[in-house]
């Protein structure tokens, strides 16, 4: 398997604060990888570097053989990086269907004149896009909600809409920032299965930030642990659970015992 995402010595500092500190990170195609770490460890900052929102202070990031340095988020979306957000950021006063169609923006072509005069080419494009968006909504379990405004969806469905919208961008790499935050155990279980299904059905590479250790240990191929912006451990879930530094710095002995008890 080839590396889809590769970060080499990436740092990001804000003034005196070093949020991400010379991080090396490799993500193989079609892998599910998790980044864990205490609050403020630099996980979301790393996401924002990968998606072009922040420019790395040092180091560089390669995505699908492209150096992403200096590219803007919308340009990286075009290259194939899709994401969701830690706090839900839907287009609230737009319909569920429109939200997904916005995700498909870069794959469509009509601009002002196409929109106004609607030549057959544009009509066909819109028809196909609508059909595909409906299919995606069906896929994530939002069938029947197409005409609801995004703000009116219950929380769990909003999370799913964020994923459908990101899938609309036709990503190769999907970054999920705490996809199960605020969910009850049942919803969390559903989401975990759904993330694995995404990889299996669509051949996506998935990178997630997650606090729920059941989710992390359950679906990850590799786990990377950050603390104060530094990578303190990396490996399979089994290795991470046995890693002394992780246990000391992050999980604590009681958490380890709890996890062992679950097995």
């Amino acid at each position, binding site marked *: 398997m080839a590396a889809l995402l590769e970060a080499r010595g990436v740092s990001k500092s804000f003034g005196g604060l070093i949020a991400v500190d010379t991080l090396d990170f490799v993500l193989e195609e079609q892998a599910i990888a998790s980044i864990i770490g205490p609050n403020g460890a630099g996980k979301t900052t790393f996401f924002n570097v990968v998606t072009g*929102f922040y420019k790395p202070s040092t180091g560089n990031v390669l995505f699908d053989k492209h150096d992403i340095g200096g590219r*803007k988020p919308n340009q990286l*979306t075009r290259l194939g990086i899709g994401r969701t957000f830690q706090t839900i950021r839907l287009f*609230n006063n*737009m319909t569920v269907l429109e939200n997904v169609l*916005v995700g498909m923006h870069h794959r469509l072509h009509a601009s002002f004149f196409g929109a*106004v005069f609607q030549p057959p080419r544009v009509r066909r494009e819109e028809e196909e896009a609508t059909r595909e968006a409906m299919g995606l909504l069906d896929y994530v379990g939002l069938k029947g909600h197409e005409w609801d405004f995004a703000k009116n969806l219950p929380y769990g469905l909003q999370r799913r809409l964020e994923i459908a919208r990101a899938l609309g961008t036709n990503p190769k790499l999907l970054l999920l920032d705490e996809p199960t935050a605020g969910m009850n155990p049942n919803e969390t279980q559903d989401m975990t299965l759904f993330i694995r299904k995404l990889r299996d059905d669509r051949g996506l590479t998935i990178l997630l930030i997650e606090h729920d250790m059941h989710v992390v240990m359950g679906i990850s191929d590799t786990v990377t642990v950050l603390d104060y912006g530094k990578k303190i451990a990396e490996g399979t879930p089994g290795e991470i659970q046995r890693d002394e530094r992780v246990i000391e710095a992050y999980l604590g002995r009681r958490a380890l015992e709890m996890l062992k008890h679950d097995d």
Partner: protein
Amino acid sequence: MNAIAESWSKLPRMLQVGIVLALIIATPYLIGAVEQTSNFALLSQINRALIFVVLALGLNIVVGFAGLLDLGYAAFFAIGAYTFGVLTWPNLGIQASFFIAIWICAVVAAFFGILVGTPTLRLRGDYLAIVTLAFGEIIPTLVRNLDEITIRIGDWVILDKFNLTNGPQGMNPLGRPDFSFFEGIFNMQPGALAVSFDPKFWYFMIVITAGFVLFASRRLDMSRLGRAWKAIREDETAADFMGVDPIRTKLLAFAIGASFSGLAGVIFASMIQAIFPELFRFQVSIFLLIIVIISGMGNVFGVLIGGLIISTFDGVLLAQVLPQILPDVDVQSLRWVFFGAGLIIFMIFRPQGLFPRKAKAAVIPTALAAEGGD
């Protein structure tokens, strides 16, 4: 109200279109019958109201769709009118044809839209409002002072007291549409199709323009570009992450909104035949913004209907009817009290406006048909 709307929606599409067209065509003749005098003051006021509807539809693109709070929108109205003035005022000698000039003016207005948009791209909300407010003040002031332009480089005089806008006196007369070509074809007397102040002609001219702007707005609403505008309005950062280029998208909103305003400016200038800097003051921008907010931001038909109601209220009721009923009250001086109070009442009791946008408005109907209805 709902019962009427319901039975209306049950009518066949052709009948709906027929009724609306018949009403539109009959309106100037009905008003002519009602009005005893021959000067058509009422119809002229309705024409002005319709121009404001066109402007409000243009502003709706910038504010309602893209969420860019523009407090200087009247500047583009002025740019349209004054570009038309420069192109057709006899003293400048260009005297371009109306039908050529109108497109040039729309393009010039769009160019100025991009000119204002570019430095403000990083600004959001209130800060953008302040810059556009300043732009709205600059343009009338500029126009007022472009009557003695002198450009000198050393001894080389490029322009000496060149009068571009005729300053505070305004430009008069301006070009009118010329249909004399058809007089020849249909063997009519010379001058039979000459355009004058006749408000009936201008009524139809404005209705056609409004129809085009309405049609374009509707189509934009359910297009890729319209969705990108709305996504920027809702969450610019998230839109960027979803592949929408905020710079390009916002500039297109400024340019297209400005060009609609430029079209309105041309028709307005040609209709009233005299333009002054005072016609394009800050109050015009605010009046348009009030229309868009009270009607329901982002809803094209809402802005159409709300614009008709509000600008007819302003132009007919406040300017014509009330002064006759209440001769002792200076109704005109209370004009802004009505609008200010109206805005406050709406913000408290119905912040989404009279006609908030409906969900189904968003997709081309045939795109849905492909999915087998809803």
